[in-house]
């Protein structure tokens, strides 16, 4: 009798575990396999892959697409990185808007929308993040994968006890061996994340990239926010862009120098290891703040949270916030306008290496009309002009 009851209990728990396993497995599977269409805009002249620059990345989840927009007039080359940290969606969406709308008259624009594609397939473990989010458009909605700051452990595991950055040998947090903004410039025989950086470093060198701009978002409790972080080679460009944007675009953006002592970051290592100027843009994302309330899609897209507002009243924030929050349109708009100003000022200074781009909305356009107004309808697009991320 006693044995029978124990067997029943074990069976019930096993079944319960199986239900949880299947339900979680399905959620992980759906997240990892959610297809994100990119409707190639009129300016996209080629779609390459990172493996075109480094074969070692071929066949891995991080063999990201590289969208090339080449103008008729020769000029410079600029690389924009979206999705280094896919839990910061404004960077990916801004790059998406460029891919679907931009037309280049002069020079070449390279776009990567999923710089760490592996990190788009997982969210913060135990963080109860939504696995996706949808942007409303006039034809319905477009759904994107929400991601994490780190590569998916399914793709790179286990983490070491200690992470020694290559080549500086600086000791970094062990988990940051999966953080693509701590593994620059990368190495060919390293981890997946290091190999991804190495592939992009090869791209930068082989394509003669003049400027790399890495798009990010930051919590309001982090001091490096609403700013352009600039390698010393890009100080003048960042300083003047900051002033032009603050004077003309309707929002303020500051400037920070890239610290030499902090290794592995794009704004440090790309500038040090290639001829390119490296810049990193930060927009405010309340979703990432530790003192947030419910962690849902609404917070991700509207950026409204009364607990963070309260933290601001206690002087704990480095950026302002009120009941209007930080909607995704403002954050994407900031990135788009900052990119355009940097392109314009660079072209003004270096005419022979210039990049002239049209068709991309600025901050005020995106704030007025929303992000969805600048996303194309995959259902009515030419199937030959659709690529999946």
């Amino acid at each position, binding site marked *: 009798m006693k044995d029978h009851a124990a067997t029943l209990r074990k069976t019930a728990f096993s079944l319960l575990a199986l239900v949880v396993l299947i339900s979680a497995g399905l959620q992980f599977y759906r997240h990892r396999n959610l297809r994100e269409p990119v409707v190639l805009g009129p300016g996209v002249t080629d779609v390459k892959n990172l493996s075109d620059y480094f074969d070692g990345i071929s066949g891995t989840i991080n063999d990201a697409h590289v969208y090339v927009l080449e103008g008729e007039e020769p000029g410079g080359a600029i690389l924009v990185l979206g999705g280094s940290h896919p839990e910061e969606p404004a960077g990916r969406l801004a790059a998406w808007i460029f891919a679907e709308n931009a037309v280049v008259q002069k020079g070449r624009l390279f776009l990567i929308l999923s710089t760490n594609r592996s990190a788009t397939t997982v969210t913060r473990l135990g963080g109860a993040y939504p696995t996706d989010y949808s942007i409303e458009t006039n034809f319905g909605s477009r759904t994107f994968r929400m991601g994490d700051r780190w590569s998916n452990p399914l793709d790179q595991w286990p983490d070491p006890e200690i992470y020694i950055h290559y080549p500086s040998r600086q000791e970094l947090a062990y988990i940051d061996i999966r953080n693509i903004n701590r593994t620059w410039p990368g190495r060919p025989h390293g981890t997946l994340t290091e190999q991804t950086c190495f592939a992009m470093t090869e791209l930068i060198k082989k394509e003669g990239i003049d400027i790399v701009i890495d798009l990010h978002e930051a919590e309001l409790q982090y001091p490096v926010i609403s700013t352009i972080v600039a390698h010393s080679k890009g100080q003048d460009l960042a300083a*003047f862009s900051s002033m032009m944007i603050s004077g003309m675009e309707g929002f*303020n953006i*500051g400037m*920070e120098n890239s610290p030499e*002592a902090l290794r592995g970051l794009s704004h440090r290592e790309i500038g040090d290891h290639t001829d390119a100027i490296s810049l990193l843009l930060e927009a405010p994302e309340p979703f990432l703040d530790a003192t947030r309330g419910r962690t849902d899609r609404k917070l991700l897209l509207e950026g409204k949270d009364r607990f963070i507002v309260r933290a601001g009243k206690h002087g704990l924030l480095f950026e302002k916030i009120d009941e209007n929050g930080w909607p995704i349109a403002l954050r994407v708009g900031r990135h788009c306008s900052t990119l355009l100003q940097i392109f314009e000022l660079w072209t003004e200074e270096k005419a022979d290496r210039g990049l002239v781009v049209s068709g991309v909305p600025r901050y005020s356009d995106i704030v007025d009309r929303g992000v969805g107004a600048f996303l194309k309808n995959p259902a009515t697009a030419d199937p030959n002009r659709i690529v999946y991320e």
Partner: protein
Amino acid sequence: MHRLYRVVVAAAVVLMLCSVVSTAQPEGPKPELPVLITSCGQSPGPAMLKVIFMRAKLEYDPIAYEISEMASSEDLKAGKEAGTPFKTLIIVMGASLKGMGAAGISMEDELSRTEALIAEAKKQGMTVIGSHIEGMKRRSQGASAGDTTDEQSIDAVAPFSDILLIHKEGNSDNRFSIIAKEKNIPLIEVEKNLDLISEIQKLFHR
């Protein structure tokens, strides 16, 4: 009548003299080129001022301005001894913990360097301009709880400046206005940093 005529003429002469004296009075400190630009707190402010000076296109042989994040009183002495003294010192106020960390220095180091720099500048008769151009981000809004380095930087520079050149948003609590009033320092405020270009042109061309 003759006497009245003489009184009128005398009064006119006195008025004319007063007028001459009035126009001959200094309008305030007159900064001259060349300029040494540094910061007190290793903020990126000097890089922003460098761009402003580039755009202002001030001409001076051999060079109108120089940026030195770690400028010291020794640099000023060396310039004077070499016969190429700086005439104006601009110190950008506001601290960056990242910037100081990168330079391997503390706020105390910055305060001592600044104090020595201002003392030498005054000794050489240079004009000292205190500048704060990064708004509230380089004040309380940009500082962690308990981090007073931005305010220490202001205290080390603003009261000892001959001119204050300030972005209006960073003066929204009247911090600089109060110092300017107490110390009788001319205060130039700009709404946008781009306006600094014309202000710099006016300051050095008048």
